[in-house]
């Protein structure tokens, strides 16, 4: 994204290419009349991302910026087609479902995770993302289950603080 903003056509192409499947899944999951609708919306959203790219603040997570644009385009589309449908205000950001975890979402997550020590990072990833049990994750990190629990708790607390701080 930053590469694209600096005028790097290659980086921008790659970024848009990553967004495409993410947007596709996003609109797909909010089922429409047919695939043409979904593809149209993907194109609309991609064009909006391109046209409005200067409105992304480098301090904000890229994902929330992209999905806010996608949601706006979705609501706009529903308004135009006159179909009344429930659109959740707070989106359950699709993580693994959409297969974009290597892209924008991963970037934001990594940035957030990098604010806690390495061992806590590993614990959070193992338990919260990869689905290991506390005991297994503790063993991987060289900790007893109890120590792992305390450490994980601290890490989650620190992360929560980080996320809430940004709201100001």
């Amino acid at each position: 994204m930053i590469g694209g903003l600096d005028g790097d056509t290659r980086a921008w192409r790659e970024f848009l290419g990553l967004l495409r499947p993410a947007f596709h899944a996003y609109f797909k999951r909010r089922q429409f009349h047919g695939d043409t609708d979904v593809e149209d919306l993907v194109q609309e959203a991609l064009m909006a991302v391109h046209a409005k790219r200067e409105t992304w603040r480098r301090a904000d997570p890229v994902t929330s910026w992209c999905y806010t644009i996608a949601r706006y385009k979705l609501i706009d589309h529903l308004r135009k087609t006159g179909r009344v449908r429930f659109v959740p205000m707070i989106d359950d950001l699709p993580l693994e479902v959409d297969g974009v975890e290597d892209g924008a979402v991963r970037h934001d997550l990594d940035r957030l995770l990098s604010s806690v020590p390495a061992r806590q990072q590993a614990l959070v990833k193992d338990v919260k993302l990869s689905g290991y049990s506390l005991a297994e994750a503790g063993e991987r990190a060289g900790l007893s289950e109890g120590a792992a629990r305390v450490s994980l708790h601290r890490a989650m607390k620190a992360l929560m603080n980080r996320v809430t701080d940004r709201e100001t």
Partner: protein
Amino acid sequence: MKPEPLNTEDLIDRLAAGARPIPEHRPASRAAVCAGLALVATAVVVWMTLGPRPDLMLVVDEPAFLLRQVYALSIAGFAGWLMLRLGQPGAPVRGPVIGLGGVAVLVMGLVAWEQTGLDGASRLGAFLGQSWTQCSLRVGAISLVATPFIFFAARRLAPARPTLAGFSAGIVAGAVAASAYGLYCAEITATFVATWYSLGILASGLMGAALGRWILRW
């Protein structure tokens, strides 16, 4: 608006080819320039229609004059900040909202303090001043000059809530107009400014909301 190539890959290629360096904080600098131009334009309009105030140089350090300017410009600043935040998807809006609320509380405190120091008859005098019938109308009218400048900047943003963004853009235009009108106005009480200036700014905000609903869509 349907794109010419229906193939998404082609679209991405075409968009990517259009990547150009974009300076950081471009929306903010554009808004600042537009607000500056609006300030100049409204001041010129006040100068030409209402005429220069002969004693302008004498009153610039009066508390009443300073209060008007500080009030109008801080509202313009915070509302502009809010407009920017609303127009940048995913950006938090708490800061500017707290700022606007803070200014409102300060001004109301000032009014309360002024009113407690006055007796019944002069209270009404402080409230109505010499020109209460004109003030809000003039601020509202002058804001029409500022509105195009502010909306030019707002158009380039991406507000998820266009009406709300239009409202804050209208508040900016109104506050800029209030600042320009404050160069001419000879009222000296905080109560007057807090009431009639605010009313004019609010009217501009409502016009902006109506406008934003239509022209801030993207």
